[in-house]
């Protein structure tokens, strides 16, 4: 018995040593891959392609990073693929955003929980905004909410995603702050994508648009639309003339973060490597300029912060969805 124990102890020690040796070796990326859980052209695709470009340009990775589009289930197919088939892949990162955590919270990814993957980082966020056509009768959020409270069906609000999505939740939050009792009465018209929702607004099919600020930027500059509220904690530095919802009396902040996750079973070295890699990317001036051009704010979370952040984000949305009545 004693002998056996000693042998197993030795074996254990040996594994420990070899294990620590393996850890001590520097992690080297081999044929890295970024999965964009959407079709080419979407926001997640943009995250992957931007990350791939900067990591390569900054010599953080030697090989070019392959970007794979794996659409399906609003990101659920990619999530299941990573947790079930690639759980120990050290060379894989996946694009994520507010929608990812919102869908986990609302149970849209079947049986998925936050712990199934390793949350790597956020590197930017953009605030939601409410826009109206240039000749709209609404000059501010108060006028619009007044009309909605009189008759909720008189104001159609377009958004680039389905009922219950973040684009829908944002106006519901404002309506709740305005004292509306049944916020599900809001007339939300779902479009497939922010661009399409914008055409809905421009063709006067709807009266208002709920979306991300960056999607509206071009049309704001051309004068086709007016933005009556930005859902940030304070006014944007680049557009100080747009009032926040908060200063108009509706304390609502809606930030859509952009970031990445990776397989939970990847080695600690790999997790550390990718964390450093994304950190280095966010420190790059060109990257920050890109963010600014896309009207995104710096919004960095790494390591434990990131984990806490996602947990908090999921909790918030679960709570909200229950209050609003989307989730039972």
């Amino acid at each position: 018995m004693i002998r056996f124990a000693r042998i197993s102890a030795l074996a254990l020690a040996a594994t420990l040593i070899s294990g620590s040796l393996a850890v001590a070796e520097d992690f080297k990326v081999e044929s890295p891959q970024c999965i964009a859980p959407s079709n080419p052209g979407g926001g997640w695709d943009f995250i992957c392609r931007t990350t791939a470009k900067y990591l390569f340009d900054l010599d953080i990775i030697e090989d070019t990073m392959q970007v794979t589009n794996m659409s399906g289930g609003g990101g659920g197919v990619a999530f299941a693929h990573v947790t079930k088939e690639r759980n120990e892949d050290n060379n894989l990162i996946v694009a994520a955003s507010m929608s990812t955590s919102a869908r986990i919270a609302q149970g849209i990814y079947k049986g998925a929980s936050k712990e199934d993957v390793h949350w790597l980082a956020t590197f930017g966020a953009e605030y939601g905004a409410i826009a109206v056509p240039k000749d709209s009768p609404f000059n501010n959020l108060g006028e619009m909410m007044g009309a909605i409270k009189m008759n909720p069906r008189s104001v159609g609000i377009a958004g680039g995603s389905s009922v219950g999505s973040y684009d829908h939740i944002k106006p519901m939050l404002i309506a709740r702050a305005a004292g509306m009792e049944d916020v599900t009465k809001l007339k939300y018209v779902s479009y497939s994508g922010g661009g399409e929702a914008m055409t809905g607004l421009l063709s006067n099919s709807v009266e208002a648009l709920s979306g991300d600020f960056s999607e509206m930027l071009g049309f704001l500059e051309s004068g086709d639309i007016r933005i009556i509220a930005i859902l940030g904690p304070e006014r944007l530095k680049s557009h100080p003339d747009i009032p926040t919802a908060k200063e108009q009396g509706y304390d609502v902040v809606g930030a859509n973060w952009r970031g990445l996750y990776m397989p939970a079973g990847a080695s600690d070295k790999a997790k550390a490597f990718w964390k450093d890699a994304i950190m280095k990317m966010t420190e790059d001036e060109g990257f920050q300029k890109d963010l600014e051009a896309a009207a995104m704010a710096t919004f960095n979370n790494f390591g434990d912060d990131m984990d806490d952040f996602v947990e908090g984000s999921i909790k918030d949305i679960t709570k909200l969805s229950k209050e609003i009545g989307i989730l039972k």
Partner: protein
Amino acid sequence: MDVLSSLGDGFAIALTAENLFLALVGCFLGTLMGALPGLGPANGVAIMIPIAFSLGLGPTPSLILLTSIYYGAMYGGRISSILLNIPGDEPAMMTCLDGYPMAQQGRAGEALTLSGIASFVGAFFATCGLVLLAPQLVKIALLFGPAEYFVLFTLAFATLGGITATNQAKSAFAAAFGLGIAMIGSDSQTGSQRFTFDHIHLYDGIDFLIAIVGLFALSEVFIFLEKHKSGEIGKTGAKVGKLLPDWKMVRRCIPTMGRGTIIGFISGVLPGAGASLGSFLAYSLEKQAVDRKGETFGEGDPRGVAAPEAGNNAASGGALVPMLALGVPGSGTTAVLLAVLLQLNITPGPLLFQKNPDVVWGLIAALFIGNFMLLIMNIPLVGLFTRVLLVPTRILMPVVAMISFVGIYSITGSTFDVMLMVGFGVLGWVLRKLTVPLVPVILGILLGNEMEVNLRRALTISDGDWSILVGSPLAIILWVIAIIGFTLPIFLGRRMRRRMEANRSG
């Protein structure tokens, strides 16, 4: 004059040795990708993005490479349609209907050359339209609200009866079947699951590419297997025949190309419609215009090849209008191009023409250059392409099967989708045995979701009031065309039958 001088600047940007070389490479690769079933323009462009970036190309050269691939793939799609009855990409589906019969009659060379010319005409004039009319065209796109889109899709289905002459009931069944398949997946309005049976791979519905490759390409392989066993198959495929059409045939097709270009271009400009609808409407309306009796279309009428090719290539030019001017992609490919622009720090939108004139005009000049290059490249290559017909079917069919499998797997990366494709292959074989036309099935899958979503959007906006569907002059005009398109073949068919009976008795 302003436009011309801007375009001149554009040519100055595009006409460098490097850019011309990239355009050539792009056109060649694009044609190849378009011709391979499964790989279409969207995937072709997506595959080339990392290559463009790792080569360290600037914005304009990258765009030149990628748009050359886009246009090349739109040209290339017709090749396998005509030679193999397998559409290389979805807009090329309509080219099968008359292109393949032409090839079987030994007129493959003529069909290829003619469709190449039609592609050129469509793309060339669409690019001109893009140059001259982009800002005005955006206004047309904005005339279309959800109700108008719904009527437009109804129009497409109403004219279905016209294209498949054999049996109207079977066309209707096929269209309904396609619409049924389109209903599978998450409902984009509410996010709830429909017919997915909790299977995650079905959450996003069934990709029409899988359906097209299965229904057309694999079912062809199955039919070959069946015939091969019973010894019905000859040693080689069709005859090659002469390569170039005579001037008379081309001249007869000029009005056809003109009409196809206009219809295709307008469909392209509408973000919800796209190239498939463009080629479909170009074909079905052309048939109603010149072949009301249904005698020559579907039997290898050159006009049945020229119309959809002019239509789909014009639509690919038209689709750039909403992408550049509104930032709204009108098709899968323009969605990819949009992503490229964003990555190059160019934000498409109403101010793009003022903010980044060098990029826009360089791009447009590149489109003109690529277009001429494709014409010059495609005509001499017709001889080479038609050689495919000389390959014995027993070698050709396994190659088709292999390309189908590799193509679908490379796009979706999922074995489930590969199995689904095999399922569609079997389905296609059964439908062919029952002489149910395949085009309406694909049309149903392609347009079904958009049609439903737009109807529901319209009804949400009107609070359930159905009169919104006839609420604008545009909607009423579209209804009138749809009703004429639906009833005309029925009345004409009746009159024709009477005439035929009279002939027989007389």
